[in-house]
């Protein structure tokens, strides 16, 4: 039983939301001068938005780039909060840490090993580095980084660590399950913990106040309660919250292992000129170098000078992106000159990720919801039915026509169409299984329209065969000679269609890309079918008496084809 259903499922493609029902939000970037944003910033925006959507716990949500736009698809219905969530601005801000505590209260007391988390970014805390440990932080910051002046030993930039690493990760994200994704941010463990022991006993005890013993001066009283209630182990921990730079903020660390009370923003992300990940040549560990623009450099110099001598955790400067603390390094010294270096327990991946976030998170990439489409499952089913019906009807009409017109040869065109249809269907299923392809209405239309293109290849070939027959060649010879000439025509004509498909695909918005993809795919399949199936089949059939003798029903009746005037009807030479 299960085997059968599994098999059935294996042969049914995944449907897009316009057919299956669901919500699709298209976000278009708004740039100050109307130019299109850089590819990297878009890629990063996709990552950030994907994190946000996944952070809400919606399953099967999909966030992809389509040209300059970002398309978020959520199966199921009425995801108003998703619509709200995905379009907000991502802006990086630097804020001084006023207080810090582990994610949940049960882990508050121990001074070391803050959480059981073992994500690379936060893991090596059991042996905090000398620099970080000098701060004698009672609740060791999970992001145990420290910030220092960019030393002379310039970090050697590794051969493009950013691109390859990030791409790899992205691929992984797309293909593997969401688990992989969440593990990246260390959410996995925390989620697990949260469900396994939802209420760890010590946590409810007011005695273990996370703020016990902390210096609360200068903190807005209203934030204290918020801070106490904040549970960073939840998957929804305030990602995507638009923070007001002029107000203090309560926020979680990105991996969900710590929570912070942060002061007003002192430096804005727009003041970050650049950030790179590299290896420190003296220590051999991964570091992130940050360069500030002139105003940012002044602000940064001032704030680092002010807080470096303060007791922990007030000597930490948090970088907040999208309502989440991505790093909160301890300031080692006043850092003038706008060049800083963040060090401490980085892996290549975490260093690159932080550098990217500093660099691109700094871009105030604003998005506009340019289209929201919420398709009910009944409407989706209707459209699917309509599309399939139209496709079936189209095929049948073409089959009838070619049988009437080409008679015996019609068998070739019908079976070729059948082969093309099967190959197309299998490709769609394979693509949907392995490449996340979702069949949508524009795809179906593209596939139907391509029936004509596929059929035309046969028509070109058959007409050439008839030309050769009229010229008095034997069928076997005609089949070969005609192929030589038809081949070129088919290739040139298909090339034109393919160019059209490629141009449409890369410059397309919305459904156009899907349509173009279907058209390009079928053009390729058409060439394969004509070369590998139609031509060999015609060659084989040419050996059959029925065709070779030019039976009236074969469609290759030389007499009928050539007859001009019964009086001068040439004697069939080879028949």
């Amino acid at each position, binding site marked *: 039983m299960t085997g059968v259903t599994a098999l059935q499922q294996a042969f049914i493609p995944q449907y897009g939301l316009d057919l299956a029902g669901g919500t699709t939000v298209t976000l*278009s970037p708004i740039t100050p001068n109307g130019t299109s944003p850089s590819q990297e910033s878009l890629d990063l925006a996709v990552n950030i938005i994907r994190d946000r959507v996944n952070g809400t716990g919606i399953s099967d949500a999909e966030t992809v780039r389509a040209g300059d736009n970002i398309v978020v698809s959520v199966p199921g219905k009425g995801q108003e909060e998703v619509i709200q969530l995905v379009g907000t601005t991502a802006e990086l801000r630097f804020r001084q840490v006023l207080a810090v505590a582990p994610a949940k209260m049960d882990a508050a007391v121990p001074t070391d090993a803050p959480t059981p988390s073992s994500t690379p970014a936060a893991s090596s805390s059991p042996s905090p580095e000398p620099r970080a440990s000098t701060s004698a932080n009672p609740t060791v910051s999970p992001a145990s980084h420290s910030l220092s002046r960019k030393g002379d030993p310039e970090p050697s930039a590794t051969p493009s660590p950013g691109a390859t690493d990030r791409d790899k990760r992205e691929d992984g994200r797309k293909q593997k399950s969401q688990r992989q994704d969440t593990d990246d941010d260390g959410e996995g463990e925390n989620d697990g913990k949260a469900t396994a022991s939802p209420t760890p006993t010590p946590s409810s005890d007011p005695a273990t106040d996370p703020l016990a013993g902390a210096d609360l001066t200068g903190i807005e009283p209203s934030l204290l309660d918020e801070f106490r209630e904040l549970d960073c182990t939840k998957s929804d921990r305030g990602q995507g919250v638009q923070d007001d730079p002029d107000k203090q903020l309560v926020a979680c660390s990105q991996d969900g292992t710590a929570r912070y009370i942060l002061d007003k923003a002192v430096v804005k992300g727009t003041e970050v000129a650049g950030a790179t990940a590299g290896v420190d040549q003296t220590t051999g560990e991964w570091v992130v170098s940050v360069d500030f623009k002139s105003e940012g450099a002044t602000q940064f110099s001032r704030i680092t000078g002010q807080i470096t001598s303060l007791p922990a955790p007030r000597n930490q400067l948090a970088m907040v992106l999208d309502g989440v603390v991505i790093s909160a390094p301890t300031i080692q010294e006043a850092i003038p000159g706008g060049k800083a270096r963040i060090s401490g327990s980085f892996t290549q991946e975490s260093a690159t990720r932080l550098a990217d976030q500093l660099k691109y998170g700094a871009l105030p990439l604003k998005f506009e919801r340019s289209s929201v489409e919420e398709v009910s499952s009944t409407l989706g089913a209707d459209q699917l039915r309509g599309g399939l*019906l139209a496709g079936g009807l*189209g095929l049948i009409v073409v089959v009838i*026509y070619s049988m009437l017109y080409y008679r015996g040869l019609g068998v070739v065109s019908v079976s070729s169409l059948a082969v093309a249809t099967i190959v197309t269907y299998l490709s769609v299923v394979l693509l949907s299984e392995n490449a996340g392809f979702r069949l949508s209405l524009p795809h179906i239309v593209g596939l139907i329209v391509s029936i004509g293109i596929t059929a035309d290849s046969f028509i070109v070939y058959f*007409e050439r065969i008839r030309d050769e027959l009229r*010229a008095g060649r034997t069928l076997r010879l005609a089949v070969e000679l005609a192929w030589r000439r038809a081949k070129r025509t088919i290739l040139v004509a298909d090339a034109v269609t393919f*160019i059209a498909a490629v141009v449409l695909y890369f410059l397309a918005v919305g459904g156009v890309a899907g349509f173009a993809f279907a058209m390009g795919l079928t053009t390729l399949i058409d060439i394969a079918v004509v070369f590998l199936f139609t031509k060999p089949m015609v060659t084989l059939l040419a050996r059959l008496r029925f065709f070779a003798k030019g039976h009236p029903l074969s469609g290759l009746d030389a007499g009928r084809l050539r007859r001009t005037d019964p009086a001068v009807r040439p004697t069939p030479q080879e028949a």
Partner: protein
Amino acid sequence: MSGATNLLGRLYRGESNVDFVGRQKLWYGLSITLLVLSFAGLFVRGLNFGVEFTGGSVFSFKSASASIEQVRDAVHDTGHEQVIVQQAGEDGWRVTTETMPEGEITRVQRALAERFGLTQNDVSIQVIGASWGGQVSEKAVIGLIVFMVAIIAYLSVAFEWRMALAAVVALVHDLVITAGVYAWTGFEVTPATLLGFLTILGYSLYDAVVVFDMIKEVTARLPATGKMTYTEAANGALNATLIRSLNTTLVAILPVASILFIGTTLLGAGTLKDLSLALFVGMIVGTYSSLCVATPLLVTLKEREPQYVALAKRVAQRRQAQAKAEAAAKAGKASGGTGGGTARQTVGAGRGPSATASKRRKR
């Protein structure tokens, strides 16, 4: 046998001999008239842009019991006056409103659901920002330009620049006339329509490419033989591929017609209908243009080449000489019955060599 069957029979046998190229002036005149009409339509009436271009919200749902008045009232009750209600297929309803804020959309959605006994999730919504259509059309225009440049480059390499130019002119011709049809009929223009327009490009060219391929083949050794002008050879090639062109168009239009049929009857307004309508109109115009615009234009361009000017002269001289000789021969054998072959040849030369005539010579 009726004339029509006869024509079909000749088409089937590839013997048609329509003088497409010789009637250049007629086609050019017709096309220019159509183009002027199309431009007039575009300027006077303009295109009827759908909500995807103007921005707004669309609510779709199914209800067997609803009437247009009920649906309109249900939306009016929420305080929105600017409402277009359409029936979409059997039981389907489509309500288009102006742009409204997020909360309002949910409110209208809920109101419609309550009124017709549905759950909120049964009412589909589509919200389009005002800039979306602009973005779509901007991309479409860029796509169009890139595509034309790519095609001109490709055809210039695969064939020659004159063919590329003729094909692209025919393409623009098709697009303008299709747009004109939309302007005059007032069909709604949606992104799906644009998609259809862009697809027409592929078709229009595909057809022209097949015809040009044949012309290229037929005219390859033309200057050397000196028996036919370029015009005649091109016309022959056109006729030889005529049945293919018609077949292709028919085979291409059949599936599109079936989408149009299903899209109109079953689903009503929507992607399927918009797309197939544009394709349907465009394909018909495209077939006309590849026969009556692209090839005549190519011939006009080619006949200006020195080698073909010279060829035309030589052919004319040769024909004159031939005619004289034949007249003399006829006069000589005044009463002798001629064989069918000769008679047909004379007719052929008089009308300009047909496709069959050219083939016979090649053989």
